[in-house]
């Protein structure tokens, strides 16, 4: 399972990097053009949209790289057996959280599509963003499940 989720997480992380670079270049272009009274219409909306993709899509890789903040006093002081049980337990808690989030974000996406909610200037469909974040949460859940039984040093 880890062999399946690892390339997916990496691909999403790279997509997030493209989104972040686009945010930077778009904002700089807008600031420069604004000085000539030619601002790029909808920059604010696009940057918010790209920001959501950049962060959401980086979530699985950040977990794979053990980049989230956690306290591991207990895990460090346990013998390998109980330590493994604790890791499975904590990952199961995370899988549960992200399963719930993915499900509810997808439901939110369906609601937004039904209501036709879009951003005010560029008419960007908000359901698309909800589905994108739901997808990232689902993959995050899979990453946590895939790494539940793997020793820490094998994860990255």
């Amino acid at each position: 399972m880890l062999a399946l989720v690892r390339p997916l997480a990496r691909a999403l992380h790279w997509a997030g990097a493209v989104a972040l670079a686009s945010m930077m270049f778009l904002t700089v272009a807008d600031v420069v053009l604004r000085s000539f009274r030619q601002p790029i219409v909808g920059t604010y909306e696009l940057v918010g949209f790209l920001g959501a993709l950049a962060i959401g899509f980086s979530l699985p890789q950040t977990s794979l790289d053990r980049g989230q903040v956690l306290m591991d006093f207990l895990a460090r002081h346990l013998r390998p057996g109980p330590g493994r049980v604790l890791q499975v337990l904590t990952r199961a808690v995370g899988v549960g959280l992200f399963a719930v989030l993915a499900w509810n974000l997808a439901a939110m996406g369906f609601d937004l599509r039904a209501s036709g909610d879009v951003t005010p200037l560029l008419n960007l469909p908000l359901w698309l963003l909800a589905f994108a974040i739901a997808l990232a949460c689902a993959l995050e859940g899979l990453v946590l499940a895939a790494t539940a039984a793997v020793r820490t040093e094998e994860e990255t």
Partner: protein
Amino acid sequence: MSPAEVGGLVILLLFVLFGLGVEVGFAMAIAGGTGFAIMVNTDAALNMMAKDIFSVFSSYGFTVIPLFVLMGQIGAVGGIARSLYESAYRFLGHVPGGLAMGTVAAATAFKAICGSSPATAATFATVAVPEMERYGYDRRLSTGTVATVGTLGVLIPPSVTLIVYGILTETSIGKLFLAGIIPGLMIAVSFALTIYGWCRLNPALGPAGERSGWGARLRSLPPIFWVAVLFLLVIGGLMTGFFTPTEAGSIGSFAVLMLTLARRDINARQFAKSLLDSLRIATMVITLIAGATIMGHFFVVTQVPMRVAEWLGSLALPPLAVMLAIVVVYLIGGSFIEDLAFMILATPIFLPVVLEMGYDPVWFGVIVSVVTMIGVVLPPVAINAFVVSGVTGTPVGTIYRGIYPHLAGMALILLVLLLFPQISLWLPAVFMP
């Protein structure tokens, strides 16, 4: 169950999850969502959690975080820290302990473009420790200094901690940046004085290096000039209202990219690495904020912060005693949980108390940042010590022994800032009245 009882149980659940090793951001989301479900209902809680994740991830306001982190990451991979160290070394290398003092000076300048504390510690561990090693510096002094100077990024703008505090408390990021400058410089001076005093007492700790001629010194100055220009561009744009914080982060990142490209210090692969690394850090921070937002909605229904404020008010203690108690809570909390995470968790609880006592939220932001600075190098969860240990292969215990002398100066300045809020508030009052 009364709201106070549910509040107590949820906080207990939160700490159990922390103790088990559940990621801090995830634990806040789970505990907050569970509490909300008990207080309202399960459907409302699930709906609220999804909406909070959606709104935090897609908020334009939060895009400031990855962009300012990117600015520092490009600066770090682009060799700006090394150039600044080279310059500081030319001026101070010949003084006993001068290479360590040069590290403080270079890190202070580098902080003007890099807001991440561990990134600075890692960068200077790579750049400065081998140089100090070459001149026979004691490992306690070299690694302790490098770990400690990394904390300057918590206070000197563009600090990620101040940005997150500003977003959480709806306080002007421009004012917070200005408020951090004088206290940040005071702490930098305290680091240099500590090194000077330590080396006077024990000259073997930091032997003098070679003296550089004035030609070499002047030739080393351009990087300092460019960093000053970048700093003025970003902070000036924010202060005058020409840029939003997100725009300031974009312009700063772009300008650092152009500078490093012009110096041929960065290539496509390194730029990609800085993007990926920035996203890893920003995702960690924004996940914490998303968890804290869910927790915050639970606090709203139980009114936990208001009850804490009422309780502290009922003790009829002098405001300074209450502030000291809050500082102690942050220090203890930050000693067990990562400091930024604890700041994100605790600030919504304590801010109403601070406002109730008539203090300025900008000043409280500075106090919280100084406490976070101390926490970043205070055992047992001293992230910078772990980072420097990882980079240099020095035992963490040796690094701690190099950090302890600096803690006294930091604590003293914290006390001064608590007693004299005008030190922090003077620059915002002058430039952003």
